């Protein structure tokens, strides 16, 4: 750790549609170090997937466009590479695992074909060698009878198994960065736990950096070193994992935490939902995008969109009123001072 692997600066992604320009990602900047795990949290439409697809240059252009930004990976700006140079990085140095394992694997090709094709292409392996490596990979993600199952088709696997195949595929060329786009969302809870355990183990063994996209703070809690919270195309808060849970300083993060059910709660407390809807991405407000739904709002929030401000050690929040959040958040989170005591 310590060396910067990926440095994203002021990244914007827009889509030109019949209803106007959709501002999906609005100037996102963050850094990920080698071997680090970054959690990217936010609700649907917050720009977390689109920002990562932009990094991978998998956004269809048109209708998509990238009006500004730099994506510096190992010293080169991915947005300036030719299509062919980018293709050689995809699946090789940066791999991506997608949300729905039911539709993300090709139904008419065997698992073996789908794993080995990248190995043959990027690493120049022979068919035999690629097959041996594919067996290793399937064993690594705990697929029983790996050898025999290479010739099976996706529909012969369960959802959890397919996601493990996807992960094996993502890891096949030993990437430095694995982007996991809600890899556990489509799976039931026990399978979710299995998948996160596998990823944790592989990260320890292989040492790649991971960006884990999710809308579920619970999943990320046991996994990430650092968490970015996204809202309508902005990063609104970023902090190390523990700090984020112990000391959330953006009303949206507090809202997310308040809507998680807690098993250790003595009384049956009601969950606190975040009322309202995120803003229309075509007509973005001038001020803070969270204004309409915020219980800490002031006049300033309406007039000026807050930038990320340093609020603690390695902790930034895009809220003018973070001090008020610090004072009043506990009533939303139903927690006592005992809960916040440092572990």
């Amino acid at each position, binding site marked *: 750790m310590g060396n910067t692997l990926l440095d994203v600066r002021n990244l914007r992604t827009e889509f030109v549609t019949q209803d106007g320009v959709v501002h999906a990602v609005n100037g996102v900047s963050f850094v990920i170090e080698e071997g680090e795990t970054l959690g990217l949290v936010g609700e649907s439409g917050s720009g977390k997937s689109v920002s990562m697809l932009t990094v991978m240059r998998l956004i269809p252009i048109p209708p998509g466009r990238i009006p500004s930004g730099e994506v510096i990976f190992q010293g080169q700006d991915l947005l300036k590479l030719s299509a062919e140079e980018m*293709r050689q990085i*995809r*699946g090789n140095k940066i791999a991506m695992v997608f949300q729905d394992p039911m539709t993300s694997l090709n139904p*008419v090709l065997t698992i073996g074909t789908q794993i080995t*094709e*990248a190995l043959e292409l990027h690493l120049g392996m022979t068919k035999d060698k690629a097959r041996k490596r594919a067996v290793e990979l399937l064993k690594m993600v705990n697929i029983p009878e790996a050898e025999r199952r290479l010739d099976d*088709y996706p529909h012969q696997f369960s959802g959890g198994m397919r996601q493990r195949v996807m992960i094996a595929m993502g890891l096949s060329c030993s990437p430095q960065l694995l982007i996991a786009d809600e890899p556990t969302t489509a799976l039931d809870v026990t399978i979710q736990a299995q998948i996160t355990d596998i990823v944790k183990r592989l990260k320890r063994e292989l040492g790649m950096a991971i960006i884990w996209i999710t809308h579920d703070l619970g999943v990320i809690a046991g996994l990430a070193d650092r968490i970015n919270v996204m809202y309508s195309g902005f990063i609104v808060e970023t902090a190390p994992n523990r700090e984020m849970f112990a000391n959330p300083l953006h009303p949206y993060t507090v809202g997310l935490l308040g809507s998680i059910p807690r098993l250790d709660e003595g009384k049956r407390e009601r969950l606190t939902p975040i009322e309202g809807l995120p803003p229309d991405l075509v007509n973005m407000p001038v001020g803070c995008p969270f204004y309409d739904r915020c219980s800490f709002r002031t006049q300033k929030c309406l007039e000026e969109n807050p930038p990320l401000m340093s609020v603690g050690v390695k902790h930034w929040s895009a809220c003018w009123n973070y001090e008020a959040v610090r004072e009043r958040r506990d009533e939303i989170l139903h927690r006592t001072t005992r809960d916040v005591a440092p572990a």
Partner: protein
Amino acid sequence: MAAYVVRRLLWLPVLLILISLVTFALGIYGPGDPVQVLMGLHTRPEIVDQVRKEYGFDQPFVIQYLNYVSNALRGNFGYSVVKFPGQSVSDLLAKRFPVTFQLNLVALAWSLPLGIALGIFSALKRKSWFDVFIRALVILGISLPVIGLQPVLTFAMARKHEFGTFSIGPFLPVGGWKGMFAPEVILPAFILGLGVLAVFTRQTRAAMIEVMTSDFIRTARAKGLKEWMVVGRHALRNALIPLVTIIGFTIAGLFAGSFIVEQFYGIPGVGSLAFDALTSREYYIIMAFTLIAATVYVLINLLIDILYAFVDPRIRYQ
């Protein structure tokens, strides 16, 4: 799989019995009969009745039908009465079926691959001028009637075009049949294939556009595959699945199409035979033609179901 094929084939005789009953009934209860056509309207009724008796056309429906079936089971499908007197129906068909088969084969051979290729390019270059051009051609191909196209092509291809002292043509023969490798085949096969080309271009385009937006195509791109691998290996294989379905209809449609085209170009195939048989109410020939068409249809559909299992691994027949 083998059990499935056998089970499907066992249905064939049942189907043939039903179809033959309906066709036979239409032939007998429909107005006019071959004897009437043969003798003309001005022959004395007694003589017509007598000839009818000779051919057995005076028998009740059930007897005629059972006679037909028992003969057919022994390989005798009756004789022509009017157009080819004395020739057995099986001989006639045996001579003519290969001609139609070859004509359709040539029509498919150029139109099917070209249609699929145009569909793929049209889908990949969606909304480009190429795509717009192809789509316009498709609409033209589907809506142009053979009756309108045939004289235009004949005019363009069979005439000597003179421009002052300079002249070109004729380019192609516009009739007759000298086998599937002779130039006579070009015009009829072109006209026959045009509809197939249009249908396959359109269907391939639609299937490819849909497949290209699938999640697994995004996965293939995320793996850093080359574009030809994404299209050829990942997309096309999936786009073929819906295409397999329409191949059946298409081939059936070709047979119907050869009815007219064979007539226009004087091609001695089953199409023109059936056309003659219909106009002269020779229902033995019509019967045989219908039964063969039904059998071909059933076999093609069976073949397509088998093909499915190969194209789509999710389908396995128990």
